[in-house]
């Protein structure tokens, strides 16, 4: 090769080197810069907020090596298989670091977030199967991380709202918010990523969550939307399952409207409810009879121009609560509550539809229910500074909990007007360390937690409830709940 030829080749090589640098700039932006929103890189490697950058260096070399040569998903999948083995062998603690590593290696494995957060929320329990509430903030933080990494699809939003806020924490406002976010997003085909219609249960659960949180107008609107969606599916796909789905929506919508009428005297809602129930595709004979009876009632109330409200007069709960130490770390909470004598169901506006009181009266005396079952009190015994409303405040998923914190939560059913529960914390010093000097015992009844037949008498938000001692309208604005708080010293418990 001549000297001049060689020099021109060297020059060409330099030009190519510069070209490589030029091509690299936009590639680096697409690949590594979060601002590009391309998502080609796990977000936590380069994070402008610097929340997760150090994580890379916390990992052992084999993970960095495996991740570096493109085996990230395979390693994550195999680690998750290992986590499954830990679960079945009862080594629950060992799963948590794996959840961290797997979600770092592969931030789009949805079920790792779902299963990991469920595991945190439900599987760490004391000797009496009460879950360790200290794991709820990390569970929510993990789900929110899942949402940050997978914001386009409904799955993570729904799971956070349904599994955690609605089922576990019973925070209906947050449940409605997150399930509502899920209804704004579609599903994706897992093979091709093509957009698919979201499962029908998402909107139905949003309607339920709105109803639970007391947002009745939105709940009704969502039931109407859910019904329209299912009717459209039925028209387009003609699958048998959609007949059932349409009837599920109609029954829920119709019944909710009737309840609005019975509880709050809303004749217009009564009319809407009857209209919907009359179009049920496949009603059972009892349903048909109930709808007819309710329609006859509607005619009566319309003629008068107004109707009574089942929440009147308010039920006086007459709540009485006592607590005492039985032995060290064992507390007995007991008392009485006027929730809810069967007599309070006599002559309700809803009776022609439900027929509950009439059928109960026709039973032999020994089988008659004197009290309606289903009312439960929730109980919290925790450090005095523990704030149950701040469960969502943890910013970043970290499973290391504060072992000095004591939080116990349980519930007790009111049976025949009485309740009694023994809180035995003596067998689980890891969960109940009692390191602080001051504690609080909170006992409450939230009407939003109550089943439908109880709400039929006291309303969705406790409008038909009163109590001389413990009525509380401040904790949840717009909701009349019963709430008692006692301050305990360490010596009261140990």
């Amino acid at each position, binding site marked *: 090769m001549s000297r001049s030829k060689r020099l021109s080749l060297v020059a060409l090589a330099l030009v190519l080197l510069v070209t490589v640098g030029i091509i690299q700039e936009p*590639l680096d932006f697409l690949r590594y810069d979060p601002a590009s*929103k*391309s998502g080609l*890189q796990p977000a936590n490697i*380069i994070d402008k907020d610097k929340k997760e950058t150090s994580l890379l260096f916390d990992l052992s070399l084999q993970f960095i090596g495996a991740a570096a040569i493109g085996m990230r998903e395979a390693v994550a999948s195999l680690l998750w298989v290992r986590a499954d083995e830990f679960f079945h062998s009862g080594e629950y603690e060992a799963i948590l670091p794996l959840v961290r590593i797997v979600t770092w290696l592969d931030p789009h494995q949805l079920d790792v977030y779902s299963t990991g957060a469920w595991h945190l929320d439900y599987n760490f329990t004391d000797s009496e199967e009460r879950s360790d509430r200290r794991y709820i903030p990390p569970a929510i933080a993990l789900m929110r991380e899942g949402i940050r990494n*997978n914001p386009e699809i409904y799955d993570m939003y729904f799971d956070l709202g349904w599994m955690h806020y609605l089922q576990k924490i019973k925070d209906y406002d947050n449940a409605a918010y997150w399930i509502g976010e899920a209804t704004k997003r579609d599903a994706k085909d897992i093979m091709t990523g093509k957009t698919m219609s979201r499962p029908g*249960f998402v909107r139905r659960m949003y309607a339920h969550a709105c109803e639970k949180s007391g947002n009745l107008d939105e709940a009704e609107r969502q039931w109407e939307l859910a019904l329209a969606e299912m009717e459209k599916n039925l028209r387009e796909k003609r699958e048998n399952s959609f007949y059932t789905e349409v009837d599920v929506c109609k029954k829920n919508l119709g019944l909710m409207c009737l309840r609005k009428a019975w509880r709050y005297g809303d004749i217009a809602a009564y009319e809407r409810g009857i209209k919907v129930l009359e179009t049920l595709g496949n009603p059972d004979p009892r349903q048909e009879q109930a709808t007819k009876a309710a329609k006859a009632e509607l005619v009566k109330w319309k003629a008068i121009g107004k109707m009574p409200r089942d929440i009147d007069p308010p039920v006086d709960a007459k709540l009485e609560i006592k607590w005492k130490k039985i032995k060290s770390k064992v507390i007995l909470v007991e008392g009485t509550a006027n929730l809810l004598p069967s007599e309070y169901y006599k002559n309700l506006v809803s009776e022609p539809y439900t027929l509950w009181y009439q059928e109960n009266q026709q039973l032999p005396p020994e089988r008659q229910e004197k009290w309606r079952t289903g009312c439960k009190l929730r109980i919290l015994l925790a450090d005095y500074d523990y704030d149950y409303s701040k469960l969502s405040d943890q910013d970043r998923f970290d499973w290391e909990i504060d072992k000095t914190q004591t939080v116990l939560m349980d519930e007790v059913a009111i049976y025949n007007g009485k309740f009694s529960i023994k809180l035995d914390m003596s067998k689980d010093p890891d969960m109940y360390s009692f390191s602080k000097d001051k504690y609080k015992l909170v006992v409450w009844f939230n009407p939003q937690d109550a089943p439908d037949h109880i709400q039929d008498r006291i309303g969705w938000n406790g409008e038909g409830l009163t109590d001389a001692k413990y009525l509380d309208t401040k904790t949840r604005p717009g909701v009349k709940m019963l709430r008692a708080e006692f301050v305990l010293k360490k010596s009261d418990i140990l």
Partner: protein
Amino acid sequence: MVIWTIAKTTYREAMRKKILQVFLIVALAMIVLALSFTQFGFQRDMTIVKSLGLTIILVSGLIISLTIGITLIPNEVDRRTIYTILSKPVKRYEFVIGKFLGGLLTLSVNIWLMGIVFIVMLAIKAALIGEVSTGPAGFVGDVRPETYKVQIFDPSMLLGILMIYFQFFLLSAVVMCFSVFMTPTVNFFASFAVYLVGSAAPIWASLAADKEKTGLLVRGFYKVIHTIIPNFDYFNISNRLIHPHHEVRSLPLFVSESIAYALVYVCLLLIIASIVFDSREV
């Protein structure tokens, strides 16, 4: 023409290598076996099967690129056949390019053979499953899982194999460039080291951009590493492909730019190899 003749001869010679055949058979067997994985339900199993399949192709591609590339030129020198070739009207750069293309052809056949088997096996698995349910498991009441039909052919896996192919297209050029002046053993480790460093590009990019923790000099050092060492991480997009629900607005642009990057870098490496080989006493 000369280049093509050298490439064909190199390809035939490489494909006769027993070790290569063993790698290929083992890789194909592992792909087929990976598909028998059924433990967690369709969605999770497919994630595992896809990631394992792509990883098997990736690891096999890595081994094949290294084992073929390191011996391409040193073997000709050791067996003294290079004297016969160069005594004919064959220019040295033609020899280098012909050898590279021969190696590349071998790599292409191996990777695409594994790729086709992988895609066919995935389609069979999807067809056997037929329908999957969506929605969290174990729900009661109004929350009932709904079913839908699975798409049998997954085109994104083709893209995954294409990106793996270009990754090793680039690595083959690195190995080729080293092989003109290194012994096979040294070349094996040097090329593997370049591959590891180049695959860890997110780390260098992260350190080069971290103004809070690192000084200007250190950042500059990492920036140089990030720019000079071929970036193999660009071609690792399996995460996006395994989880297609994750939207990437600029994927076609990214893929085309990555391929352009590989082409330019390979040209650069072949020029360097030609210059070095030309100045070498053979």
